[in-house]
């Protein structure tokens, strides 16, 4: 699933490790989500959205939505 995680992280000058610590997941997970290799569960997607204070749809592209 495409997402803006890398951009949002870069805007805050956070490393993948910083974001991983804030989300209480591994750096491996952050990398997998950022690169679209792994789609997070709904609870983790909400944690990400709450951390960036944004709605989920502003972070993750809907997989059913075609541009």
């Amino acid at each position: 699933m495409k997402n803006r995680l890398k951009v949002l992280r870069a805007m805050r000058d956070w490393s993948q490790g910083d974001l991983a610590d804030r989300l209480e997941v591994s750096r491996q997970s952050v990398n997998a989500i950022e690169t679209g290799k792994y789609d997070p569960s709904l609870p983790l997607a909400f944690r990400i959205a709450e951390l960036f204070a944004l709605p989920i749809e502003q972070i993750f592209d809907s997989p059913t939505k075609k541009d």
Partner: protein
Amino acid sequence: MLKSKSPAMRRYTQRIVLLMSGYVAILFGVNAYFDNSHPTGLSAFAAAILPALPIIGVFAVIARLLVELRDEYLRVMLVRQILIATGFMLSVATAWGFLEAFGLAPHVEAYYAAILWFGGLGLGGCVNAWLERRGEAS
């Protein structure tokens, strides 16, 4: 197994080291007991089953790791690793069973299933790494 130094992984490593140390000690002890005392009956059964217990414990420790891992991505990777190990072990054991039944392969003790399964975990780890590199982690 997984690239992580989370508390769950640390506990997993400690438990595995403890169980494997116990396994080696028990195996030496039981071998010596059979060599020196030639037990029979119930005591022989009880002694012979002892080395299996730490190995069964390893299965329980891996199951516990699945429960304790808080990182859902690492849990997905571990589940895939376990599924690959189980599929590998069942496939080889089934094929070997038929070869043995038709007299084309020698008899192998059933505990080799566990060895195959642990080998399958290694295979699963390789598959995980390969899929990660290809960008198909899940």
